[in-house]
């Protein structure tokens, strides 16, 4: 399957050549000058009928519009340019600039043409920065957990319980000892996915892990060579055990805290350790 991307590159090159070819073709194409009627129609479409609301003289059916159309053809036959006719009608002593369907790209009305691209440029720059800031991983100093996060917590625990129940068909066991539960699971990673969120797409990799967690994982990987070879598959599954069973000092430091830093507000979906239920 490797050659495929290169094939696409070649294809793009081919496309560029074709485009050039097409461009030269169209440049050489016979440039039939527009007929008088075609020119007249293009003028019609650029003049607003002064007597009817918001219709060009091309669209309007009133006699005055018909007269203006006849005038346009007459003057074009006499050799006037299209711009001369537009200028004639939009002169201040006649109808003024309001008969022009297209505001002139000069003077004050230049603003109508300039504002959209300017705004767009601005919005594009803004979007670029928004995208960049959205991509940035959350700051390592996560704010202290607030009580408002407890809802997420309880919600998550409910889900876990529901999952267990739906698998075993019985209510969850009444709070097994955390150490036994976790050590058992760290030996058997295949039983772990119940602690990942139910979003299947979310569990492919773990780039969304907050950086403090990553640090911790790195530390753990260094200290446990047997699992280092399959880090990507393991990090997510084994992080809960890693925190509690392998770094007891950290565990004791956080034990009074219902929400470890994993539950950064930007990651309410990240699974808090199941142990928190027992602690809380």
């Amino acid at each position: 399957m490797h050659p495929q991307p290169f094939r696409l590159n070649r294809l793009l090159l081919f496309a560029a050549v074709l485009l050039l070819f097409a461009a030269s073709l169209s440049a050489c194409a016979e440039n039939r000058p527009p007929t008088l009627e075609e020119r007249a129609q293009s003028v019609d479409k650029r003049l607003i009928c002064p007597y009817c609301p918001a219709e060009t003289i091309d669209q309007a059916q009133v006699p005055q519009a018909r007269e203006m159309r006849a005038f346009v053809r007459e003057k074009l036959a006499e050799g006037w340019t299209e711009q001369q006719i537009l200028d004639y009608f939009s002169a201040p002593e006649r109808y003024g600039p309001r008969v022009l369907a297209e505001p002139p790209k000069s003077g004050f009305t230049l603003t109508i043409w300039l504002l959209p691209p300017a705004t767009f440029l601005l919005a594009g720059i803004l979007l670029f920065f928004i995208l960049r800031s959205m991509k940035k991983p959350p700051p390592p100093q996560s704010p202290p957990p607030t009580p408002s996060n407890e809802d997420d917590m309880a919600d998550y625990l409910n889900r876990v319980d529901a999952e267990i129940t739906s698998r075993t068909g019985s209510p969850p066991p009444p709070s097994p000892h955390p150490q036994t539960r976790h050590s058992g699971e760290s030996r058997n990673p295949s039983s772990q996915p119940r602690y990942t969120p139910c979003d299947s797409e979310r569990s492919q990799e773990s780039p969304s892990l907050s950086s403090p967690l990553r640090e911790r994982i790195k530390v753990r990987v260094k200290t446990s060579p047997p699992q280092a070879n399959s880090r990507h598959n393991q990090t997510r599954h084994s992080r809960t055990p890693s925190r509690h069973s392998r770094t007891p000092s950290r565990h004791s430091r956080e034990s009074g805290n219902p929400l470890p830093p994993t539950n950064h507000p930007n990651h309410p979906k990240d699974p808090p350790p199941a142990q928190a239920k027992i602690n809380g």
Partner: protein
Amino acid sequence: MAELGLITILLALSLALYSLLASVIGQLRNLPTLVQSARNATYLVALALIISSFSLVAAFLSNDFHIRYVFEHSNLAMPRIYTWVAIYAGNEGSLLFIATVFGILAAAAVAFSPSRFRPSLPYSNAVLMLILVFFLSVLATLANPFITLDFTPADGRGINPLLVHPGMFAHPPMLMTGLVMVSIPFAFAVGALLSKQVADQWVDVARVWGIIAWATLGTGLLLGSWWAYTILGWGGYWAWDPVENAGLMPWLGLTAFIHSIMVQKRQGMFRMWNLALINLTFGLSLFGMFINRGGPVPSVHSFAASSLGWVFLTFMIVGTIAPFALFFIRYNLIKSARPLESSLSREAAFLVNNLLLLGVAFVTLWGVVYPLVSEVFSGFTVTVGEPFYNQVNGHLFLGLIFLMGVGPLLPWRRAAGGAFKRTLLYPAIAALATLVILTLIGIRNPYALAALSLFALVTVGILQEWMRGTMVRHRRGEAYPIAFLKLIASNRPRYGGYVVHLAVIVLGVGIVGSSFYGTQRDVLLQPGETVTIEGYDLTYRDSRTVQQPDRRESFYTLDVSRNGQPLTTLEAERTFYPEFNISATRAGIRSTPIEDLYVVPSEDREGDPSIGFRIFVNPLVWWMWLAGPIMILGTTIALWPTRTPLVPTNSPLVPAKAGTHSRPNHQSSFPRRRESSPSRPKQSSP
């Protein structure tokens, strides 16, 4: 009838006020019975308004010209069926229609919302009632359709002749319905903000109502184009008229909304953005109503013009600023679940798509208000017509179609470079092949070339997705047709969305064909004379005139042949209404998938047998009208209720109490988050 109509309006007003206050107080004081009574009041408001509307209909049917509105918009000669148009032909009647539709929709929104919404529903109800109170107070005071005259005239003035068209049975009501329906997702969003339930609960319901509003508005716009095409007699279907734009802008906002809300539904992102977006869309719909009523800019749609401009302007300003103020008060609560991972992902494509859609909406808004800007700042009036919109928005639409081709092929979160290139291979080849073939057959317009190549990109991308999915299922032992149907059933929002995308492509083909390759001729024909245009030979045969009590109808018959082969006979019509001094034309159209031959009488000179005709040959317009049914089909697929919940919901840990007011059928009609948890009870259990 007049008394009944007015009394029911006042009744509805007081009930709406009661519902508004009761739901807020009931929620704040935690009085469930009061909240329930507020909901019942909402249902009664709808009932009262239905009675009021029907009393207006009854007044029309009984020719009760004592009522001023009936006198102004109907007469004895009007075909009875057009009563259904006449009720919204003027300012007062259309307001009553809007209020009635809105009342019914509000009742439906409240009745069908799943019980999960109970904490925020009273607030949403209050918001809906607040909007309705505005309409009803205008109806009761400034625009009462039941005002009576001092005497009873023998006959009425009659309906505006431009409105006597089959399209009028659907186009105005659908547009009005679509415009007010934007308020429903908006009300759920504001309810979420007020009740601080700002996470993802409001999204499901807002999505369903958003899509319904989007489809209604879109169908209304398309029917409006059809009406313009067949009756306004200028061979076109869209003129960027201020009122058309007023309907288009909220539609664009809704399009952006129903795309970006998918990101929140699937990925829990863009929470802030979605709330801001629905606020903005609501603001645009209020702007639409203001343009419709106040008419600060000239438009061909001056049917419902009134002196209510300042009322609607105030409503628009308050209705736009207040939700944004609330949004900023609640700003701290709204956080996305996940950061964006890659610029090459579907989320990012949705974000750019939103930027472009809002860009089109902004350009349109700017064009609509520019005459006022110019008048204030430079002192002279200018007109902003089609050329401006076509030039500026044309580029943005091309960008949108490109995204429509690439976006669906991008995976969520991040695209792996190689896989993405492989997915893009065939669509890109198709686009290039189209480009080359079109260039070789002599199409030179760069915009037409770009648009058609991009259409190929989108179409092949969609077909490829369908084929791949079908193949995978087929390999598991399903026959092709069944595999295809099951594929669509497996992810209705997605595959329904693809069908809608195809509808947009079909629409685009019609627009490109007719705007770049149309021909137009003005001719003056004697009876028996023949004119040749684009290979068609048109012979003007004769005309006949029918004198009706209130109008004079003239029919002109033309025989059409091609290369000596007779094709058809076209009958174009021109009706003169002396009462209004208006001539309405009805084009004679021969429509084929390749091109339309379109003949409209343009000039009728007294005492001269020759008649002026304007003849158009518009390629591919037929496809535009086909886009409507396809779009409705796609929307239906996307919204079709899911029978079996996508995830098990029968978790024993969901508190049994939550089910007391739940309606399981309705609940399942709002598809749950696919990847979400088995149960998400709102209240935390112990």
